[in-house]
């Protein structure tokens, strides 16, 4: 039910125009962090205020919105933000990746390949990849401006020196369009290759840090590495989803009893449901059947 007390998608029109201008600038300079006048939102920082503002600025009445948190459509953050847009914009929502025109995400890029008519909106906690290496914001901006990125490799060097391999598993720095080093927000590095040459527009919003950045469609995105320690994604050898039997996807580990029992399921809940609907089965296909039932539907909230 749309709430008439709010402007469409909560933000007033002037604010949306301001955010759109920042988005356009971000798209024009791939990977560059554009400052914007981030607003107070009716949710705490850390809950996706940046992503919500970006989504509010680009969403139209005809859009179909998908909200994911850690890959899943039915976790707290996803449910809360989906409800927010159902209430303030009255748009259709879905859990199906293929049906969505806007996907707002925290942590994951859907397993399903994205298309040119989709936009992926990331919620970003810390947009500055050099933050923990160089504490001064004035200095990090200068380093971006002058393309001084040697320091980023110092972090990777430390990883190898300490752990014997590059142990950074999330927020793995990437070089966008051969120019700006960018923090892909806390997505697992498993998803980094999906950013490269992606058909969909990717927008990143950091509410607390007041930054927006973007990767335009079909843009080169390279994960940083060393010649003798090349970038590689996590491999989950021997693991398969307990529900749908999928291999080589990103998994959630689910503790199922008090005796150390655990199972692995697809982190991307829509992908898992799609596979089960197509007849794929894992080792424990019925385990979750009593709890699920909300996913897989496209519902109109108006």
């Amino acid at each position: 039910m749309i709430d008439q007390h709010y402007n469409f998608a909560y933000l007033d029109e002037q604010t949306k125009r301001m955010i759109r201008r920042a988005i356009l600038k971000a798209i024009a300079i791939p990977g560059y962090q554009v400052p914007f006048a981030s607003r107070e939102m009716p949710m705490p920082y850390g809950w996706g205020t940046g992503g919500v503002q970006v989504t509010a600025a680009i969403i139209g009445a005809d859009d179909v919105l998908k909200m994911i948190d850690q890959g899943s459509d039915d976790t707290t953050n996803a449910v809360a933000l989906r409800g927010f847009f159902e209430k303030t914009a009255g748009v259709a929502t879905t859990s199906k990746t293929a049906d969505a025109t806007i996907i707002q995400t925290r942590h994951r890029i859907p397993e399903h390949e994205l298309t040119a008519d989709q936009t992926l909106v990331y919620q970003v906690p810390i947009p500055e990849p050099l933050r923990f290496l160089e504490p001064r914001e004035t200095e990090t901006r200068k380093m971006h401006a002058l393309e001084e990125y040697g320091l980023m490799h110092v972090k990777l060097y430390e990883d190898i020196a300490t752990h014997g391999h590059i142990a950074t598993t999330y927020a793995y720095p990437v070089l966008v369009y051969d120019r700006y080093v960018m923090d892909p927000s806390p997505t697992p590095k498993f998803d980094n290759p999906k950013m490269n040459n992606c058909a969909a527009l990717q927008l990143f919003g950091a509410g607390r840090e007041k930054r927006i950045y973007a990767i335009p469609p079909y843009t080169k995105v390279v994960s940083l590495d060393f010649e003798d320690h090349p970038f590689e994604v996590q491999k989950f050898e021997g693991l398969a989803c307990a529900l749908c039997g999928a291999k080589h996807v990103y998994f959630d580990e689910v503790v199922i009893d008090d005796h150390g029992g655990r199972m692995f399921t697809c982190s991307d809940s829509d992908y898992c449901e799609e596979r089960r609907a197509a007849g794929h089965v894992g080792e424990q296909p019925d385990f979750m059947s009593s709890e699920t039932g909300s996913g897989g539907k496209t519902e109109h909230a108006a």
Partner: protein
Amino acid sequence: MSDQPLLRAGSISKFYGPQAGCLDVSFELWPGEVLAIVGESGSGKTTLLNCLSTNLAPTSGTVEYRMRDGHLRNLYDMGEAERRFLLRTDWGFVHQNPADGLRMGVSAGANVGERLMAVGERHYGNIRGQALDWLGRVEIAANRVDDGPRTFSGGMRQRLQIARNLVTSPRLVFMDEPTGGLDVSVQARLLDLVRGLVADLGLSVIVVTHDLAVARLLSHRMMVMKSGRVIETGLTDQVLDDPREPYTQLLVSSILQV
């Protein structure tokens, strides 16, 4: 020594409001030469060093540097990107307090390797190899390569800072009181090390110090500063053994004899 100067300062002045940091300083530095700038606290030594090393823009005057292609360029006409590139490749800067010149949060190896990575080295094995080599040259044990500078003593930190600066084979190194805060035996070792490196690598060095013993051991030539002005210049032994200006005589006679 080449017959052309590496660095030429032309009447540098720096004012802090009405107060002069340094006034009308001109000199030339030749390749392979070690120049000491001495004087008491507040005489403008560090201001001058910062003006020369592009950390602080002088109010007036020029600083020209002979680039590797042989051309003399005014540093303050260059873009900031080029200046910063120069600062981390062809130059070194050794701070008095090693914490200012080191990244305290990362290991010794990464500290030495940072400049290599900054100029595009992307092979971990090579970076580590060079880091180990340089740690050896500044007498830091190879098994400390993965330890952070916080676990190092003051003397080791200073030596690590020197290694970090020299890894890209700079031609000019600025040193601001490199032995300040170190006890005398560590000072002696550090000076010995620096002297050896300077001779081996043919470095040009501008060293700022209030310690005349450091100037005598390291430098070929020295400038004595007082109230922002250079009052006496000459060969180190000449100035120290036969000071001309009353102020220099006072400085030399103030050295404690044991």
